[in-house]
């Protein structure tokens, strides 16, 4: 057992408390309280004057599925713009993930996504960011179905003179696939097995959300217009153009995962309206911060940098913490395990020397994943 004593604990849900003890037993948090007394054999970690956060959660990234070369990856099944049957689990290399050492910047969990250049790309999954076995690192398989209607899709297929060559082409493919899946009834004997429909049934049954990549407000509005007759859970990703009137987002409580703000001086990431985001948060809309771009992988610093920029542009510090902990956990459907410091949750806890959202004078002093401090873990010395 490990007892982290007297830290300032940010629970990931908006609360900050001082002089708190956290007791870890095995891979789980056993207790969070003032002055936990324990007589057993316990390792004491003094966290006085330290800031303790839940491990940060990157909503969508491609770590572990890229490389070894810049051009190499196992995410782009660009043989067809509609590939809902793809499962990113089979693309994930634990060494490629561990090599990133993102836990050095407090990131302990990540949603990993297949291509966002297909109209429907396949299943995303959630992994811990350190481990020796991919299936042991897996937190949730098939956490979301990933889709996109941005120009990334037409850039792949338009060139081949194959649909989508336009945005309307992408929408037609998306609607057609969903309607086909809606009409698909595998219980009838005469119906042939269709892997795409099977996969999309889970979205239509609300077993998993549809993560749909959109950059602008008009793209989000168009998605709402195109899919309003389907009863599905939508999460907008990218979503740079979001504002309070976007796609009736407040009525439907649609989730949002903001795309990367640090890379590339583009029209996309220039349009972010932080005041609207703040107001939407007050109305209870789940908005997560990520460092995901269109398959542009980011570094270990990138999630924190995005959080810092959101803070700099006016979001409240503890809201920003929620946006990289409990909110992405909820959107990815793993909030039963990770995203907050509470008894019963996985012991994914990071001890910082300062509050990294508010000052650059903050380094990670301990990074616990499943109760193990991995900060000084063996560096990967294979070809990775």
């Amino acid at each position, binding site marked *: 057992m490990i007892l982290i004593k007297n830290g300032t604990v940010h629970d990931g849900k908006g609360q900050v408390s001082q002089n708190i003890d956290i007791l870890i037993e095995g891979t789980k948090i056993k207790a969070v309280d003032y002055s936990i007394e324990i007589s057993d054999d316990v390792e004491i970690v003094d966290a006085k004057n330290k800031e303790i956060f839940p491990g940060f959660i990157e909503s969508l990234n491609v*770590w572990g599925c890229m490389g070894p070369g810049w051009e190499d990856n196992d995410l782009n099944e660009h043989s067809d713009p509609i590939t809902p049957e793809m499962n990113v689990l089979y693309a994930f290399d634990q060494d490629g993930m561990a090599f990133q050492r993102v836990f050095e910047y407090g990131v302990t969990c990540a949603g990993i996504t297949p291509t966002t250049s297909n109209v429907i790309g396949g299943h995303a999954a959630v992994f811990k960011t350190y481990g020796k076995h991919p299936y042991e690192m897996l937190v949730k398989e098939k956490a979301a179905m990933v889709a996109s209607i941005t120009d990334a899709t037409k850039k792949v297929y338009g060139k081949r003179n194959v649909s989508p060559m336009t945005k309307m082409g992408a929408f037609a493919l998306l609607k057609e696939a969903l309607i086909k899946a809606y009409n698909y009834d595998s219980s009838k004997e005469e119906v042939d097995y269709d892997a795409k429909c099977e996969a999309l049934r889970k979205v239509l049954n609300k077993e998993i959300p549809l993560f749909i990549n959109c950059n602008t407000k008009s793209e989000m509005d168009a998605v709402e217009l195109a899919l309003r007759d389907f009863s599905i859970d939508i999460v907008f990703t990218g979503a740079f153009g979001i504002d309070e009137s976007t796609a009736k987002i407040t009525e439907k409580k649609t989730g949002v995962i903001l795309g990367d703000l*640090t890379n*590339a*001086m583009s029209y996309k*990431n220039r349009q972010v309206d932080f005041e609207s985001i703040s107001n939407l948060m007050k109305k209870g809309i789940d908005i997560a911060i990520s460092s995901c771009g269109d398959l542009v992988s980011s*570094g*270990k610093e990138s999630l924190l940098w995005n959080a*810092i920029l959101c803070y700099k542009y006016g979001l409240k510090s503890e809201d920003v913490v929620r946006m990289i902990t409990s909110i992405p956990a909820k959107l990815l459907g793993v909030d039963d395990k990770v995203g907050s410091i509470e008894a019963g949750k996985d012991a994914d806890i990071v001890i910082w020397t300062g509050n990294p959202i508010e*000052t650059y*004078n903050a380094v990670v002093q301990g990074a616990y994943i499943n109760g193990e401090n991995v900060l000084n873990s063996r560096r990967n010395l294979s070809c990775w």
Partner: protein
Amino acid sequence: MLVIKSAKIYTSADRVIEKGDILIEDGKIKDIGTSLNAKGAATIDADGLIVTPGLIDAHSHISGFETDMSDQDLNEMTNNATPQVEAIYSVDTASKMFERVIQSGITTSAIAPGSGNVVGGLVCAVKSYGHSIEDMCIKNPVALKMALGGNPKGVYGKRNQMPMTRMGIAHVIRETLIKGREYLRKKEAVKDDESKMPPFDLGLENVCRVLKKEIPLKVHCEQFDMLTIISIAKEFDVEFTLDHAWGASDFYDDIVESGCKGVIYGPIGVPLLPGECGKIDIYSLVELDRRGVTCAIMTDGPILNPDVLIVQAGEVIRFGGNIERVLNMLTINPAKIIGVDDRVGSIEKGKDADIVIFKGMPAVDTNATVEYTIINGEVVYRRNNNN
């Protein structure tokens, strides 16, 4: 006349003034001090605010590259060595990217050809504000761009042309410099007999500028590639800068002993991959700076959003950098490296009035924001108070 009153001033000239004034006249800094007499001058009350020199990005491609590379005017990839081309002709002065860098406090950028070629062309230094390229450009050329590693290999190797390997790259660089040396020798041997003049070669003219140490080589290099340029620069006795410089922490002694003109580090925030991107170590700037190497930080714009120039400086603070030293890496150091420190890079009498006023301490407070950007004494950006 404009006066900035009661600011905490980081001059980047070995001086921090706790509460000082800056008097600006005719685009220049006229005076710095406390309680300056500034009758009739427009006043910016900067009480409680932080003032630094305008930030300088010593390695950028803004306005010459579209963010998604759908259009570009900085990689003339028709030959592995194009010393004859000049970035100054590809600068789109109306680009929105200049507005964005101004909002982040960047007042001068060195705009360089890309890394598609081994020898890319001439680099120029431009201010972020002005009405024409002549208005904006403060020095041309400031360097001759070169690139090692995966970029030129990727371009030419695919075409079954040299360079397909790092050996090929080293050869192209050496051959370019040898040809330049021959050309220079022939020109110098002419003396009064014009008939002996070698045929004019625009590219080799530019190589001669390097050989005569009028300008340095600006070299894209990572990991062990930096040793290649260190040894070639020594062989030909030319000046150079190490740009990007990921992996510098493996070669502290080599870099320090090389006498390079500077290390321009960045961009970080990239995934780690075996090879060129295997080691990203911005903390190496703390040690290099301590050992006397002139260090700067780049955005490689438009690769990184310009706000991330200061974010990266914050990363140097995170790993133990001293704030004054780190601010130098954004101001006077890049000015020295690109040879414009006679005009910009510090707050001193007589220099261009390129100044940034921050609320909060940049590179320490994550929420420090640019309140004013001033270029040539003109307020070119003022933060909207509603934001």
